[in-house]
Every structure is written in C-alpha cells, then in structure tokens.
C-alpha cells in the first residue's frame, strides 16, 4: 500500500501540481519567471560552479530521458561492451561534475554576503535537493554498476506504465532503497518546479537561434506590415 502511495500517487500528484501551478504562475505572474541570476553580485566562483553544473546536468537529464523515448534504440546502443564502458565512465564523470558544481554553488551562496542576501528559503530547499539528487546519482553509478543497462528494464517500464495510466510498480519496488530514493527525489524536483526558480528551465530561449536580430513592436500596425 505504502509503495502505491510512493510510486503511483506521489508521481501523479507531483506532475499534476507542476503542470497546473506552472501554467497558472506563468499566466498570472509572468514577472516572477526568471533565472534570478546572481552573476552580477559574484562572478568568480560562479564560473566554476554554474558551467560544470549546467552542462553536466543537462547531458545527464538527456541521458535519462532518451531511454524513455527510444528504449529499443538505447538497448542497441548498450549491446556493445565498449560503448557500455564509455557510457558508464562518461556518466560517472558528468555526475562528478554536477556534484562539484553544485557544491561550489552552495558554498558560494554561503560565503558571499551579497549572494546570501538574495537567497530565499525556496532556493535553499532547491539547492539541497539538487545536491542530494546528483550525489545519490553519482553513488548509484559507482556502486550499482551498469545502471545504464538495468535502468532500461526497471525505471523505464515503470515510468512508461505511469505515462499510459496503467501503473505497474513491481518494476521498482524490488530496487535498492537508494535507487528508489533517487526516483522519488526526481519527482520531488518536479513538484518543486513551479514554486522555485527551477521554472527558468522551461524558458530557455531556443527562439534566439532564428528570431530576427532586431525586434520592433508596433502598437497599431497590422501584423502583415511588421518589418523588423
């Protein structure tokens, strides 16, 4: 019963709250959507924290997402031993990068009085959760080897079962508690998304790649006459 609460109810609640609150925050208080950068107040440590953190975590998230979208392709990819080795080592390296990056970011917030002044409780909750999550991820990669392989046959089918509204928790209930914690912390982060600065993830400005370089907005001209 408790497993159902953890692995069925909680993920659904987290995702539902995230979507509804995220959209309603965007519609009602768009001003609050910001990455809340603190680079203006502290520059040096930020580089060593922010760059490895963001690039590390983006790559890792993609690697978590790809097997979910293309399970068989991912399986083929891992069928070769060399490729599996490379993937595992890369993953471990990236995980280390994120752990170091996030630790630096947290230390930076504590050590710089200026940055501390703009740090909220929500920020702390988010930072601590993120550090815990990547640290556990790193530990799992180190201790329970070949995760890139067994992830495909445990967590992936569980998440797919949630996606198609036919929850099957037996895929994950037998996993070590550390792995289970990692899964739940992942959905906790989803829950945190609309209430923290994490919302900036969904405003990443891809459109910059193709929008006209100059932006002109007319109050009155009909749209077809707009020439930036």
């Amino acid at each position, binding site marked *: 019963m408790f497993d159902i609460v953890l692995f069925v109810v909680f993920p659904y609640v987290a995702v539902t709250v995230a979507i509804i609150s995220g959209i309603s925050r965007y519609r009602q208080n768009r001003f609050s959507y910001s*990455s809340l*950068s603190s680079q203006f*107040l*502290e520059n040096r440590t930020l580089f060593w924290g922010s760059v490895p*953190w963001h*690039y590390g975590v983006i790559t890792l998230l993609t690697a978590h997402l790809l097997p979910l979208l293309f399970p068989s392709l991912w399986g083929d990819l891992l069928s070769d031993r060399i490729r599996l080795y490379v993937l595992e080592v890369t993953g471990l390296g990236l995980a280390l990068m994120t752990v170091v990056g996030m630790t630096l970011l947290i230390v930076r917030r504590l050590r710089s009085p*200026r940055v501390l002044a703009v740090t909220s409780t929500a920020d702390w909750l988010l930072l601590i959760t993120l550090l815990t999550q990547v640290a556990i991820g790193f530990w799992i990669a180190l201790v329970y080897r070949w995760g890139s392989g067994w992830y495909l046959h445990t967590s992936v089918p569980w998440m797919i079962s949630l996606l198609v509204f036919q929850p099957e928790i037996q895929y994950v209930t037998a996993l070590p508690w550390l792995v289970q914690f990692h899964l739940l912390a992942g959905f906790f982060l989803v829950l945190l998304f609309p209430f923290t600065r994490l919302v900036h993830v969904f405003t990443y400005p891809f459109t910059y790649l193709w929008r006209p370089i*100059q932006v002109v907005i007319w109050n009155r001209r009909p749209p077809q006459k707009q020439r930036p």
Partner: protein
Amino acid sequence: MDIRAQVSMVFHLDKCIGCHTCSIACKNIWTDRKGAEYMWWNNVETKPGTGYPTAWEDQDKYKGGWEQQNGKGSDIRLKLHSRLGGLGNIFFNPYLPTVDDYYEPWTYDYDHLFSAPEGDDQPTARAISLITGKPMEIEAGPNWDDDYGGSPVYAENDPNLGALTEEEREQLTEMERVVFFYLPRICNHCLNPGCVGACPAGAVYKRGEDGIVLLSQEKCRAWRMCVSGCPYKKTYFNWSTGKSEKCILCYPRLESGQAPACFHSCVGRIRYLGVLLYDADRLKEAASAPAEQLVHEHRSLIQNPHHPLVIEAAKANGISEAMIQAAQHSPVYKFVKQWKLALPLHAEFRTLPMLFYVPPMLPVLAKIKDGVYDNADAASAQLGPLLSSLEQARMPIRYMASLFSAGNVDVVEDSYRKMIAVRIYMRAKMVGDVSEEEVQQALQAGGTTAEEVEAIVHLTARPTFEERFVVPPLAREVAIEQTLDPFTQKREGGFGFRRAPARGA
C-alpha cells in the same frame, strides 16, 4: 524607402555645467527602488575619465556593440556572441560587468546619530551596504572621478586617450593646462541597438511608432546579455527582482506631452528633443560602413521631413500628419542634419545611436605667465581675445574624434569650425572688435552663412521651451483603442505594475 519616426535627442556639451540635476530628476522618478539603487539611467561623466561603469568604452573588456566580420565583406555581427554562442554562454556570461564595476550602493546608519549612548566622542553614521545590510567600506561611487576627483589617476585610464600621442597626453595632465568637460549620458535609443540584438529572450524591443527602446519586464529571464550587448552600458541588471531595466525616455511623460524628466530639469538647458524621420531600408548598410564613413552614413539615414517624397513615404507607413509636423519643427534635425553640428557618441560601436552631442568648445586658451593671466597665444592666432583657435585647442581634437566621429578628425573639425564662426560672428556683432574681413573668413572656414549663424545662436542661446522640446503627439489613447476596450482598463488604472515587482521564488 521605409520611413520611420524616431524620437531623438541633442545634448549641447558647451552648455553642460555638470550639476547632475538631470541624474537626480531621473533617480527620483525611476530608480529609487531596491535593486535599482546603483542604476543611473541618466549619469554625467567627467571627460577625460573612465566613466560609469568603470571603463565602459573599453569593448575589448565588455564586448558591447557590433563589429565587422573578418573576411565577410561589410557584414556586421554582435561583438558579444553569435546566436549559438549566446545560448552557450547563458550559464555564465564572460563579459558581464559586476556590481564592483559600478559601485556597491549604500546608505548611512543615521539612526545611530540619535540613539548612540552618551560618550566622549561624536557619534558617526557608518556606511551600510544596501545589498547586504551590513557595514561596508565605500570604495567607489556613481561619480567617483567627478571633476577628476582631485587627481588625474582615473582620467589616465580613459580608453579614448589611446588615440593621442604621448606628448598630447602629458599636456593634458600639466597643471596649468588641465582641462575637462562633462558628458551626460542616457540610453541612446539606437536604430541598431546592441541590447536588442543580444537578448536571447527577445525581451528588449524598439517601439515602432517612436523608436523608444524598451525592455519587457514580463519577458526578461535574467539571461543578462543586454547588459553586455549595449556598448554604452545603459541596460542595468536589477539584482533584487532579477530583471534588466533601462531608460524608458520617460515615455509616460512623452505620451502626455511632457519632456522627459532629465530634459525638463536641465539647468543649463543643454537638451533638445525632437522627431527624426529615417529610412529603415538603409539601416544595415549605414551600420556596416567603414569607420571613417560612419557619421556621414548615419546622417544620410535621416531624411528631410519637408521633402514631398519623404512625406509621402512616411504617410504610406502610417506615420501621422502630426508626427510629420513635429519632425519638421524638430530642433534635433537642425543640429544634426541641417547644421551638422551634433555628432553621435562612439559611432564605431555601430548601433546608430539617436542621441547626438554638440562637442564642447572648451575654455579659452590662456595661461598664467609671471603671475599674469596671459592669452597672447590666442591673440597671435588672429582670433582676438576670448576666442578659441582650433589649432590650439586645449583638448586635442583627436580625443574629440575618438568620442564623436569614430576617429574621423575632419568631421569633428567641421563641427568646430562652424562653432568658431558663430563665436567670431557674434563677437563682431556684440562687441565689435573683430573686423568684417575676419568674420567673412571665419564664416567661410565654417562653411556657414550669417543667416545660419543667427539661427544657430537663437536655438543655442535663446530657445523657448517649445523650441527645445518638440514632443510629438504620440496619441497612445488612439493607438490602444483598436486593440483594447478602454473600459476593461477603467478600474485597473495607472501605469506600471499591477502588482509589486517582487522577486520570484
């Protein structure tokens, strides 16, 4: 021809007394808020000097504005980043000025003056940081090197001094020749703004009707590229709300027919505001011109508002009759295009700034000789006492060229020669100690006529309020009427935020 209207500005530097009234007027209206304390949308700098933020003109450091691409003809690109590079640098912007490049804002612990326990010493009010709320050492301020701040240490780091010879630079710091002038700066509301080009979120935009560059607080996501992209450092990052902000040219005042606060409050009456009509089809061409051609190309964008073809094209583009009339009476058009006196600041940044400066004449050349105020040098140049000679200008002309004409000395000299002609003409008229021959000579050298000089004198020295500020009828009530039922807004009221601009979680 794609004619558009632009609210443009002229600052007459010869009239600026460096009183900072403009800065205070702006601060009191717009930036006396948490997170904006350090911002001076309008600031006044002493030149030579490093300015605010420190060394803002050094684009090797800040990467603002546009540059010509190597080997790709005359195409220009942002100096800051390519589109992909911009997205890659989003987690850490390598060229962002930090609060230390401006100054850490502070207040004083005034309360201590009243609440301090009785003692032998006078109680003091310590400086308190407005960011951390803790006591701090003041190491810089918004005008730290105002009037040289007592030493030429700051002035020596002025990036424009690179254009001078060693000898010229030494002269500048010579005690008897020390010279400086003031450079008031606001957002230039450029035609090719670097901030707009650099913003990944597309939050910064140019208003089509009047060309005012604005920054949508709803769309800004604190990627902070606009701060780097603007070579004039006139977009600022609000560290509290996590949004960038900039000068809005007091558009709520403009829309109700008033001059912007800094213009209105200017004690020296150095500021002029008016509409220019320009050809948007040629923007890219003008911004990509070779450096020595930039001022010329910039001027050539500006169209004659009296020309029938221009009027026709303007009307075809939806520019109202009233706006065209405002352009025809624009003092800016006279200073910039007709008289060619006013020049853009740092044209080499290629943003096509629409704030123009009449370069300062600077004081008369003279020195103390044997304890006597001696201006014999000026007399020997046959310019009579009290009149500057360009050849003996106290501020090297190349310094002015570095500021106002992308290094093209001829452009600045033309402007100066006309102003010298104005001085000599008026001297002859008012005092009568200059011969008619000399006057004619000066008029010829300045490429001007007595009639034009009279007009320049009038607009420079004796303009009325309405002549200085030809505020166009922006007719926002009409612009909005088509998109919004005014009654839906009836009870919401007021401009600005409908909720306090609080920092998001």
